[in-house]
């Protein structure tokens, strides 16, 4: 049964220095509040895992939480670069950042393999690209034992901690997610420990079209975090704050402006931007 914790308790308990941590949510339901709590807890040497690092990892990388990034597309969607990510890769600021780079299809297959307790996932991909050569530890060509055809194996991802945001949980800790469901289920099931932050805890999860439910006993902890996905969005609760994504380009441009934004909006505990 999932424990109902405060966000602060949950991060303190679940995320340790040196952990591999996946905060997922494909554009939708990105767990910003949880990421900010990790910054406030000053966790270090994390291996951060996310298909699209997005602003949340730009912030965590700039704040010095990450030693390594496992990802597949590291831009600011519709806007441009992730400037803190680039500064870490191009200039080792604030510390060097090791990259493990995949395609979206590969990352999705790695998560699904992790959720399935398989050591690898299989796909047709990577062939002919330099991604294959760059990632020999986690991508390998294998032959079909029946047809001899070459396909690609990608190493399963089993993060130490998986964190997602969802719309709702009930008081028993059952979680309900609707709209774009991304890889939310896979992350919770693939990770050794898991946390779901939710917009609200309700008495009963009313069935909804397109909703999936993660049963309480498959979830580690649930923490209430209203607007916890802002500036991304929570379908049925609030829209994506496209303006903030555009402003981030300016905020994150210089180390100083970034630092002062983090100081005022994250470290002060004043809550999400």
């Amino acid at each position: 049964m999932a424990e109902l914790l405060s966000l602060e308790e949950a991060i303190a308990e679940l995320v340790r220095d040196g952990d591999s941590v996946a905060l997922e949510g494909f554009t939708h339901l990105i767990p910003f509040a949880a990421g900010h709590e990790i910054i406030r807890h000053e966790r270090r040497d994390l291996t951060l895992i996310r298909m699209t690092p997005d602003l949340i990892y730009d912030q965590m990388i700039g704040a010095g939480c990450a030693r390594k990034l496992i990802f597949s597309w590291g831009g600011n969607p519709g806007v441009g670069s992730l400037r803190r990510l680039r500064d870490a890769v191009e200039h080792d600021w604030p510390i060097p950042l090791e990259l493990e780079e995949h395609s979206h299809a590969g990352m999705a297959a790695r998560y699904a393999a992790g959720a399935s307790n398989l050591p690898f996932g299989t796909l047709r991909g990577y062939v002919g690209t330099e991604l294959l050569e760059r990632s020999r530890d986690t991508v390998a060509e294998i032959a079909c034992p029946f047809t001899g055809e070459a396909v690609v194996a990608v190493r399963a991802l089993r993060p130490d901690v998986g964190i997602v945001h969802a719309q709702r949980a009930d008081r028993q800790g059952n979680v309900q997610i609707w709209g774009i469901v991304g890889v939310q289920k896979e992350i919770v099931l693939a990770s050794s420990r898991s946390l779901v932050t939710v917009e609200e805890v309700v008495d009963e999860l009313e069935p909804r079209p397109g909703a999936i439910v993660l049963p309480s006993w498959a979830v580690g902890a649930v923490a209430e975090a209203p607007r916890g996905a802002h500036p991304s969005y929570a379908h049925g609760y609030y829209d994506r704050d496209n303006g903030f994504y555009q402003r981030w380009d300016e905020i994150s441009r210089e180390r100083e402006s970034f630092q002062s934004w983090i100081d005022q909006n994250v470290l002060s505990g004043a809550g999400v931007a």
Partner: protein
Amino acid sequence: MTTETEAPVSADEMMTAVAARALTDETVCFVGVGLPSTAANLARLTHAPRTVLVYESGTIGSKPRNLPLSIGDGELAETADAVVPVPEIFAYWLQGGRIDVGFLGAAQIDRLGNLNSTVIGDYERPKVRLPGGGGAPEIAAMAKEVIVMLRQSRRSFVDRLDFRSSVGYGDAPDDRKRLGMPGRGPTVVITDLGVLRPDPESRELVLTQIHPGASVEQVREQTGWPLRVSEELEETEPPSGEELRELRELRATLEAPR
């Protein structure tokens, strides 16, 4: 909403209109944000109403009224025929061979249509760290055909990619077959100056169409290899009044507060 139709046609508008025309009706498109999404929606709102838009966030058959800024905006889910998990969209739908057309952009392209969206400079010590491959490597491999859209310059049309993120025709005309790629590869490359298509034999990109106001000289100057020009070079028909009106209305939804 009223929109300007008298302003001159911008480079982005020209690219978008040409890309939209490349889509026939009932095409299933795998779409990224930015110009591709605008082009596919423009096609849907003009000559190809049954175009099916598939976004990598897992929305199938999205019919957005407002252009999405991100690949996973809520409206894409609300207006979709189906929303599926991300592992499924890549495994069952893209890899399953159900995508007719994939749209791709890139920072660099070479003469065989291979794309770089990963780094400028050395991978370990990059001059510019770009976002990376994302969905592109498998879209390039698996979509039945690929439409590439990028602005033409010596920095983008290069003799040699700094990194090969996605395969066009590889290093030789039959490389796709050798690599086991089911899709046909890039069939058209749309730039702000014209349109390039692969030579049926060598697969080298050839300038086949030029936009009004651009010259062959100018295109050659903006290409990092000795560019071949088709003997039957055509001039692009400028966007019609209807195309331009729909396009500008669409783009206005992107900037408008929701």
